[in-house]
């Protein structure tokens, strides 16, 4: 078993899927010779040729819209949107077309496509390259949304997504692509969609995070441990559909919760989670569910981003506030 970075794990998953199933093709901007701007598709062009690893014209609506057709026609397209911030260009094809075709056709058709999109902050990208837009898709019935925080989960979620009969948006945290190595099995395995992962067991408070924020939550948990606060950390992994049982049973145990996300606060997934928690675990709650999030501004320039993103201190502060409530 080799130690891989997240980008290597994703790359391996893509290679595996293409080997196993000739219906799988990869398409998007610069995914061919260039291997993707983050190298997720590195080497695939040479291995599988230009018919299956396709540099499309620069047109996101076309990438997703033609993927819908490819999928119905029997292929298994994996489409890359170069940065999640550009996904607005193809919202109709995702939200009205891909996500709705099963419904509109009374299940005659389904749309097994995977849309991969790098997202999130922390690496000083130019403007509009770091936005976290999961809330838009969590609010869209018919599509699933997943995001890994580790190389292992990245591969497992991607393979799970490829095998899923419905459209899946895989949001890949840019800053984690090369952040660490981890042992990743060479063979096919799947992380079941719809399952959260308890990263750390705790008794006093639950911190829920995903993507890049999982590490922030874990770091805060470690710091809290020093103060004898026992923090349970949940990595959602799948943002839609939510693994409500894991979330609710954790909070029924701890009675307290903090949610951490990069996306802007208002209307973010944190609100949905807080709403569900207070609805289903009201009597267990000993303090309000707090949210540590990006602020309600556009994602700021590189010189400000670290201040804008939730950091360990802000999470810790909310943990304290909740505990002391």
């Amino acid at each position, binding site marked *: 078993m080799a130690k891989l970075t997240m980008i290597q794990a994703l790359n391996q998953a893509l290679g595996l899927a293409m080997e196993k199933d000739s219906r799988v093709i990869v398409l998007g901007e610069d995914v061919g010779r260039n291997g993707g701007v983050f190298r997720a598709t590195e080497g695939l062009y040479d291995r599988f040729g230009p018919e299956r690893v396709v540099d499309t014209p620069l047109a996101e609506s076309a990438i997703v819209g*033609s993927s819908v057709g490819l999928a119905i026609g029997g292929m298994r397209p994996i489409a890359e949107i170069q940065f999640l911030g550009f996904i607005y260009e193809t919202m109709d094809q995702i939200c009205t077309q891909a996500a709705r075709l099963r419904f509109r056709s009374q299940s005659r058709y389904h749309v097994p496509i995977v849309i991969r999109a790098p997202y999130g902050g922390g690496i000083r990208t130019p403007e509009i390259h770091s936005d976290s837009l999961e809330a838009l898709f969590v609010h869209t019935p018919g599509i699933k949304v997943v995001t890994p925080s580790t190389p292992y989960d990245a591969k497992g979620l991607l393979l799970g997504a490829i095998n899923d009969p419905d459209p899946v948006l895989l949001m890949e945290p840019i800053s984690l692509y090369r952040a660490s190595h981890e042992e990743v099995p060479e063979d096919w395995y799947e992380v079941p969609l719809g399952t959260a992962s308890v990263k750390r067991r705790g008794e006093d408070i639950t911190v829920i995070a995903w993507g890049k924020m999982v590490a922030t939550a874990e770091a805060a948990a470690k710091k809290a441990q020093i103060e004898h606060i026992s923090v349970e950390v949940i990595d959602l992994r799948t943002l839609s*559909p939510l693994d409500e049982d894991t979330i609710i049973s954790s909070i029924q145990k701890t009675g307290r919760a903090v949610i951490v996300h990069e996306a802007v606060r208002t209307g973010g997934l944190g609100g949905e989670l807080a709403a569900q928690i207070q609805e289903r675990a009201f009597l267990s709650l000993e303090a309000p569910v707090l949210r540590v999030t990006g602020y309600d501004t556009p994602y700021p320039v590189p010189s400000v981003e670290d201040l804008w993103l939730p950091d360990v201190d802000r999470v810790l502060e909310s943990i304290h506030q909740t505990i002391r409530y």
Partner: protein
Amino acid sequence: MNPETEFPVYRVIDQDGQLVGERSGITNHQLKEFYRWLVTLRTLDQRAWNLQRQGRIGTYAPFSGQEAAQIGVAATLRPTDWICPSYRDWPVLAYLGTPLHYPLLGSMGHPEAGHIPDEIPSLPAQVVIAAQILHAVGLAWSAKLQRQDRIAVTFFGDGATSQGDFHEALNLASVMKVPVIFVAQNNQWAISVPVHRQMNTPTIAQRALAYNVEGIRVDGNDIAAVYQTFMDLQKRVREGSGPALVEAVTYRLGAHTTADDPTRYRIGDDDTPFRRGEPVARLRRYLENEHILSPSDFEAMDQDAKIVVDKAVETAEAYPKNPPETIFDHVYAELTPQLVRQRQEFAQHLSDGGDIHG
């Protein structure tokens, strides 16, 4: 580049039912069958309009005037060819075997109208203007990748050509050289917007030049011209000539939908030539002129059409209502935990009589 000379309108039978081009490969028998289809669909369309006016169906988008542009294409396709239609393209689907009550089901709010019979490789009628054009590119592409001998054909309006998706589709199709035919039915209007406000070009066909694909203009009200054009074209495309854009010049005889009132905006433009040259009357004139059908034949066909349409209305009106809770079953392959719970709540609310308290 002079669009009018570069893209002349191909015509075989003129408005008066006179042969002005060469009839090639279309038999009298076929023309009779086409006429039967035209009359049947016209009858259906007018009946649907009336049903809506009587409150028996909901919003309906009439296709009168565009039957030839659609049947003439459909008749040249193979049963395996992919179809990506818009809301106004029921004649295509009907010709390919979709029972005539389907369009009525749609307007009555039956979700099954989105499930075209399995043996017809068609997507549901598209409501979002131009979205289906990209699906057709993907379908044609999938056929090419799988070395299947099938093409994709997509239908859309003049208004749809203004959408970004139209452009992205034509460009991608041309770059990938996939077997797809783009059929723009230029019916002169996009709801209230005339085509000369939709674009500043005299033709839609000339847009083909922007993508280096074949562009053709055909009289969409002349079923012989449409048929002959597509007999040739589908063969070329099937053999790998790449995508093609066809402008079928036609006319929306009626309103945009039953919710629309064209007297508000169809002011001052003289549409007499279009009305006189509309496809049913035109073919009838030709068949009369050439003595291919007799007055009693026409009479019989009109009668047959009425019977077939009566039957369709009956079927539609007798159509069993889907249990409402089945809407939850078509969101994902499997119900999510959330949907399991919501489905239960919904069913509970139903049985509590929720549906009568609206």
